[in-house]
């Protein structure tokens, strides 16, 4: 298994999506056309509590913005990262410090040292995967737009 494939296991991804309630998005933009805003908007719409982490803003998506993970006054299940890869080790240390359950790094946010720090701190790590896409693949409506979800199942799921 390649280094990256370790952090893209479908069963782990489904477990994280399933169990998470509160997601802190590091690098969430206020610009509605940025990928991070699309993801934050989508997650909020699907019932997750979204906590913005961005030192340059005070409020995004109707939620109070925190300068750092360390400032968040409540438990965080998933730390979702939209920053440059070299910022990851620092973010991983903060994620360990606040006792987050998982570190989820978006497309291109690849830094194996950051992953190692998070894993050693007891976090589940997902890397080079989009939280919105994975939610839409397993629990959402990604299949409505002709995307290859790679799902093969004859199990009847609940109402759409």
């Amino acid at each position: 298994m390649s280094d990256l494939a370790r952090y893209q296991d479908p069963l782990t991804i489904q477990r994280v999506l399933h169990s998470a309630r509160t997601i802190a998005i590091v690098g969430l933009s206020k610009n509605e056309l940025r990928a991070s805003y699309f993801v934050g908007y989508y997650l909020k719409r699907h019932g997750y509590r979204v906590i913005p982490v961005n030192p340059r803003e005070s409020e995004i998506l109707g939620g109070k913005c925190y300068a750092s993970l360390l400032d968040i006054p409540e438990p965080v299940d998933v730390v979702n990262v939209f920053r440059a890869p070299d910022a990851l080790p620092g973010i991983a240390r903060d994620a360990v410090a606040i006792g987050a359950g998982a570190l989820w790094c978006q497309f291109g946010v690849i830094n194996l040292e950051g992953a190692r720090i998070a894993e050693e701190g007891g976090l589940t790590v997902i890397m080079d995967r989009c939280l919105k896409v994975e939610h839409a693949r397993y629990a959402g409506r990604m299949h409505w737009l002709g995307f290859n979800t790679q799902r093969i199942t004859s199990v009847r799921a609940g109402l759409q």
Partner: protein
Amino acid sequence: MTGKPEEARAFGFETRQLHAGQRPDPNTGARAVPIFQTTSYVFEDPESAAAYFNLQEYGNTYSRIMNPTVAVFEERVANLEGGAGGVAFASGIAAQAGALFTLLQPGDHVVSSAALYGGSVNQFKHMLRKMSVELTWVDPDNPDAWRAAVRPDTKAFFGETIGNPAGNVLDIETVAAIAHAHDLPLIVDNTFATPYLCRPIEWGADIVIHSATKFIGGHGTSIGGVVVEAGTFNWSNGRFPVIADPSPAYHGLQFHETFGTYGYLMKLRAETLRDLGAAMSPFNAFLFLQGLETLSLRMERHVSNALAVATFLQGHELASNVTYPGLPSSKYRPLTEKYLPLGAGAVFSFDCAGGRAGGQDLIRGVSLWSHLANVGDAKSLIIHPASTTHRQLSDDELRAAGVGPGTVRLSVGTESVEDLIWDLGQGFALVAATAAAGAGAGTEATA
């Protein structure tokens, strides 16, 4: 989320051609793909409607842009080809236009194989030129020709896995490497191979196009097409401002930056399909899905029949120049072994003795092969270009177009192969009889 987690099993092709893209209908439990024959969809509330139109949520709005039955077809082809997703169109030609219009703007340039389906040649020569897009035709067998044709304004390479009707096999890996060395995508029309025989994305192609009308459907009932994209091309490499820059047609959205892997496909659907309007009908998507369920089974039979018919023709005194790339004597044999190990498709041509008259007599003499202008049907098809699609051309002009006066194109179907060979024998008997009568009268010239 409900249900048990799904393992990431690498399911086989035959499993995926039956299941990919569809789960039992969550509302009714229907096992077959329901035909959602609806133009539009009721929104839950104004916020949801806004989220769908803003592309912030995956939602159905209008069947010109997306439809749940068509989506099953799109995902199934994308899955079989190994792409990130697919977008269906009303025809293969519309799919091709959609794939190109998404990445081109006036003043751009495309490098294309010269050995293309005539309908594609028309689209490139006339419609693209009308849009101020220039073309360079290259010999697809010559890597240096592809390389030499690249210009600063070039935006794509285009070729067919198996050329129509000359049977040339594209060296996909080599041509893709040349394209990528110049930051260009390779677009491959995979209609003749189908994903069962060849998956161009595995060899480096970035976009795959199909006329679903052919082998994907296999029943000859429906016109349709589909574009699949690999999702790995870097559209933000500086060459593609139409995809990377803020889109004036979608309130400033930067499709590649925002959607990453899915950026090209989102733009193809949300802008190009929306604005071209060439949507596939849900009923046609349903029929194509019926075809896809048996794709591998049909293709196995198509290629074994095609090889048997080509071998028969190669040994027949009234046939020459049999272009089937699956023949051991084909100059494309090394490429066939690499890219088409399960078989080299089922469409090829040969030259019938007796020139124009010989080709026409062969058509007159057969009674099982259907004389019509299509390929990829489960039924065997035959056509004589010099008296149909290329009828207006003189013998000299035909030669320039790579078609001889006696050239006959076959699309070998899945019938009992003995019957197909028997029927061609009837055709050749008429060719021989007419030639003998003509020779006796001292008239009719030969090719």
